[in-house]
């Protein structure tokens, strides 16, 4: 099923679609208010973009500097060229520590590598601790948004799954009650877990330390109760210096939710004496993206999700319709790099309105890259034959004036004689739209007539 077909299922529930659309738009407007309060906003975006572009252009140097400092700090550093190796490294650490059950805070990278599913096959259970992620985990589905994993759900859905899995009182849909219930059950997990896995928001080359941002405090509860901390990061998470964080921390949450900063911005540099800290540095397709002039800059992404919240297609189709680990506009650029065949439809799930590029805190030219992917995927033959054929026909028509004029005439005449040809339920364009009457003459004919007067 492609994006359009999945989206159709999502929008079948009109009320839910309207709520989803309005809620994300509200978050987008909170972002606007926060950004407009800072006169230096555009300056911050320029710096963020330049710092990331510089880091990517010297990534090898900064990775080595980071590794050197991290090792000096007592951190054990691992490198994984793909998701499989990432999973094996973690499996080994867990087995060395005889760990059967562990807590994990939000990390899109571990989602990308399908870590939970892999560990399940070897009998190890992962408990996601971000509330939104826990909800979707209990429902046995993936997150639909990278910052708000359960944004596709209503409180009734949460109440239902908590009743089934956590013994909640049936029918009690009070968000505070449900949150407290999850807090209680997850606290038990925190206290029992010997190992905690986290993602990384920023890794600082000059200090060999990492920064993790959360509002719930779940990452820190996990890490600081456990004996072993495993942090997983893509190679693109680096920043050269700690003072660069001033720019990124100011941008990240303002772009994400309109908050000036997350509640917790934690800086881990050394394991606590007697404890272990591991860092897994992962490539998994990133160096391929780095090699591409067209798509390299997508690696600047700091996963704020501003492009999701503003996207008219995302808001009205829901994250699951993308069928990708990262949905939304940025996911539609990242996903075809992993699997062009599976994700060939995603760059087309956009109006190319450019709103995503305008809100992106690191100034990725998202909509231009979507357009480039369309060309690349079509050239490589990944788009459906009907789409490719239509494009060829259109290219011929637009390139041959005579053919264009004749086709226009035939088209207008046909539609005037047989309007049901397009006004029927098999035409997807007619389903949600009124079709205008076909005009008698083309604009060119009209123009010629009136020019003479």
């Amino acid at each position, binding site marked *: 099923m492609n994006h359009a077909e999945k989206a159709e299922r999502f929008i079948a529930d009109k009320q839910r679609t309207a709520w989803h659309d309005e809620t994300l738009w509200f978050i987008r407007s909170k972002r606007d208010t926060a950004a407009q309060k800072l006169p230096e906003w555009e300056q911050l975006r320029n710096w963020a973009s330049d710092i990331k572009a510089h880091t990517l252009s010297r990534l090898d140097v900064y990775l080595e500097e980071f590794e050197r400092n991290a090792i000096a700090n007592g951190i054990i550093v691992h490198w994984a060229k793909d998701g499989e190796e990432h999973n094996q490294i973690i499996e080994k650490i867990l087995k060395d520590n005889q760990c059967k059950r562990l807590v994990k805070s939000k990390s899109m990278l571990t989602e990308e590598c399908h870590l939970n599913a892999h560990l399940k096959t070897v009998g190890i259970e992962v408990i996601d601790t971000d509330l*939104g992620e826990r909800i979707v985990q209990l429902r046995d589905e993936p997150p639909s948004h990278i910052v708000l994993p359960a944004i596709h759900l209503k409180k009734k859905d949460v109440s239902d799954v908590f009743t089934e899995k956590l013994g909640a009182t049936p029918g009690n849909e009070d968000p505070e009650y449900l949150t407290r219930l999850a807090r209680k059950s997850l606290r038990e997990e925190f206290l029992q877990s010997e190992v905690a896995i986290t993602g990384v928001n920023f890794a600082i080359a000059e200090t060999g330390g990492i920064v993790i941002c959360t509002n719930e405090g779940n990452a820190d509860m996990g890490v600081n109760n456990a004996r072993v901390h495993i942090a997983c990061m893509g190679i693109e998470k680096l920043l050269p210096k700690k003072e660069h964080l001033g720019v990124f921390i100011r941008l990240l949450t303002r772009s994400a939710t309109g908050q*000036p*900063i997350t509640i917790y911005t934690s800086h881990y540099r050394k394991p606590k004496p007697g404890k272990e800290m591991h860092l897994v540095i992962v490539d998994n397709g990133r*160096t391929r993206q780095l090699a591409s002039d067209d798509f390299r800059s997508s690696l600047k992404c700091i996963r704020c999700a501003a492009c999701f919240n503003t996207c008219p297609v995302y808001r009205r189709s829901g994250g699951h319709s993308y069928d990708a680990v990262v949905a939304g506009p940025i996911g539609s650029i990242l996903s075809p790099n992993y699997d062009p065949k599976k994700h060939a439809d995603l760059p087309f799930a956009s109006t190319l309105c450019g709103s995503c590029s305008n809100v992106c805190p690191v100034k990725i030219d998202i909509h231009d890259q979507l357009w480039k992917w369309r060309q690349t995927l079509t050239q490589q033959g990944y788009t459906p034959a009907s789409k490719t054929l239509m494009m060829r026909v259109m290219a011929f028509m637009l390139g041959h004036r005579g053919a264009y004029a004749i086709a226009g005439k035939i088209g207008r005449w046909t539609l005037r004689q047989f309007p049901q040809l397009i006004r029927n339920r098999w035409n997807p364009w007619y389903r949600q739209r009124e079709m205008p009457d076909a005009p008698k003459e083309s604009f060119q004919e009209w123009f010629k007539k009136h020019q003479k007067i």
Partner: protein
Amino acid sequence: MSSRQQILERIRAVRQNEQKLPDELPKRMLPLEELRERFIVSCSITGTGVHVLSSMEEATFLFMQKAGSCSFYIGPGLPGNNSIEDPVRTDYAILKGEFGVAENNAVWLKESSMGDRVIPFASLHLYLLVSEDDLVADMHEAYHKDLIFQEGFGVFIAGPSKTADIEQSLVIGAHGPLSLDILLITNH
């Protein structure tokens, strides 16, 4: 070839011209005036309680009153610093913050002031003490401080833990403390 070597080789193989790093970033972008007022406004936005007091003693006194007969912890560097047996089951904790940021009411807490790394997250109610003289304007100024990354662990805390993951309804008290109070010590 190890994966480390492979990844680094692949990056080197596609190395582009060096993109320029911005010239030195400013040490501060927001004005230095009225830091206290701005800090207090920020607290009201994040649901953080704030109390302006004149001494550390006054702060710990207020804290002890709030803690009543619950289990409590007074962190290192504060009058009355006590030891604690079970840090994850603390009801009330008061810790010494190093500095506060006016633009977002974040307070920097260093590891050696926590007693145990878990305290600021596990305690049901958290009190942070900051001196008015230690307020900075914004995150640029904050990250120019040597304190950041100086110890093994450090954290900016900017409110009580919270979540809006259930239908976007804000709930204070997710996995960390249910409340945060900042005790601002003024010398004026």
